[in-house]
């Protein structure tokens, strides 16, 4: 049983933002509820009000538009795993969405909710960081864009302000020669380690390398130090640097020892996944 709460159902972003402003910490945005309701059931959080944002318009489409791919924050994982736009333009993200949790979570859970809840053991944030995505945050008075890198602050904490809603995730449509891959590892219900790579592979040379690690530590992080070991190199040279890049990425993951594994183990797995993700992307 859940504790009793009041349901608010705003019809505009301004209304939703105003409710958040008015009620502060005693209210929470609710969409799919796949994380939120669990935390409430376990008594970890409680709210006097839930603000159901599913009546907000125009937040539930994934579309390609003028060189950008725009994903509405209310898109469910199921909508994304069946999206032709994602399948053709962002196959790594499409594949990630097919493998989120289970079929029931994918049916109800939204990408926006996943990102805002900022559960460390989650997939999308890591890949979106490597894809250089931006999150669009809106409130009554306006909107701003936050890079994925800057969006995740800590476990269960994003850089959204109290009265802001995440409305859209924007990713530059990949050009020719762009490759990306996301791999995860876990034997519990949630992933224990996730690694994403993205780069341009043109005439045998790598540029614009981005590497992100997630799940092992409190939030997904980009690892520029590891990127530097691969950037500008030929594919073969980069392959020879993968072991070192893996060690650097492992240390940067801020892995903590817990039920998912020891710090050493997770750091090691980061290295393994980086190697495999690179091979998968580079072909």
């Amino acid at each position, binding site marked *: *049983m*859940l*504790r*009793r*709460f*009041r*349901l608010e159902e705003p019809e505009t972003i301004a209304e939703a933002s105003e409710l958040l402003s008015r009620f502060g910490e005693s209210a929470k945005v609710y969409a799919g*509820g*796949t994380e939120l*309701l*669990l935390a409430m*059931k376990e008594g970890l959080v409680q709210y006097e009000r*839930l603000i159901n944002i599913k009546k907000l318009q125009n937040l539930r489409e994934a579309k390609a538009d003028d060189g950008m791919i725009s994903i509405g924050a209310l898109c469910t994982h*199921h909508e994304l795993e069946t999206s032709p736009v994602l399948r053709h333009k962002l196959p790594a993200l499409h594949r990630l969405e*097919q493998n989120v*949790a*289970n*079929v*029931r*979570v994918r*049916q*109800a859970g939204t990408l926006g909710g996943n990102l805002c809840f900022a559960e460390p053991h989650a997939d999308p944030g890591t890949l979106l960081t490597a894809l250089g995505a931006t999150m669009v945050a809106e409130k009554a008075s306006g909107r701003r864009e936050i890079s994925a890198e800057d969006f995740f602050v800590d476990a269960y904490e994003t850089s959204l302000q109290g009265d802001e809603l995440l409305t859209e995730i924007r990713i530059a449509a990949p050009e020719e020669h762009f490759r990306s891959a996301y791999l995860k590892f876990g034997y519990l*219900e949630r992933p224990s380690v996730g690694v994403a790579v993205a780069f341009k592979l043109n005439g045998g040379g790598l540029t614009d390398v981005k590497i992100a690690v997630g799940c092992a530590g409190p939030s997904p992080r980009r690892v520029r130090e590891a990127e530097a070991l691969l950037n500008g190199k030929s594919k073969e040279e980069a392959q020879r640097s993968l072991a070192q890049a893996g060690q650097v990425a492992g240390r940067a993951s801020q892995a903590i020892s817990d039920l998912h594994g020891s710090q050493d183990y997770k750091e090691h797995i980061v290295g393994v996944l980086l190697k495999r993700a690179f091979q998968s992307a580079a072909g």
Partner: protein
Amino acid sequence: MGKAMRRHSAAQLIPLSFTLNGRLQEIEVEPHELLLDVVRDQLGLTGVKRSCDVQVCGACTLLVDGRPVSACTTLAFEVRDRSVLTIEGLAEDGKLHPLQEAFIEHGGFQCGFCTPGMILAAKALLDENPAPSEAELKHFMHGNICRCTGYKKIIESIMAAAKEMRSEA
């Protein structure tokens, strides 16, 4: 019927009109009530089970507009104007659904606790993909856990039902 629910005098009541196993229901729920509890306690259909309560095991699987949801983690008001199918609604006029027949014939259950969820999830799978490969079946059914059978007979049952349903189509 079901148990009478005591409601707080200042409760926010949401009118909930939805189709349950083909029949229109019009009830009232409070925002915090879970679909699982409303279906079991207020509506008396106990085929859906509370098991893990964290939407990992699938024993609480119900179909809402044909798609599987975790009733343990779905607020009841979310099914307003939708259609809900429970295991009790699968047989028509006493005739078992091919999935139910197959689970019986192929030994797809032992204790039966996971079975309502398994069958409903399998129905959603076959409605979407009438000829799944074993890999596709396993991927879709990944979130339904069984502690008794070791899954082999469940897979056989679903594949047999799929074959039967394709030949009937």
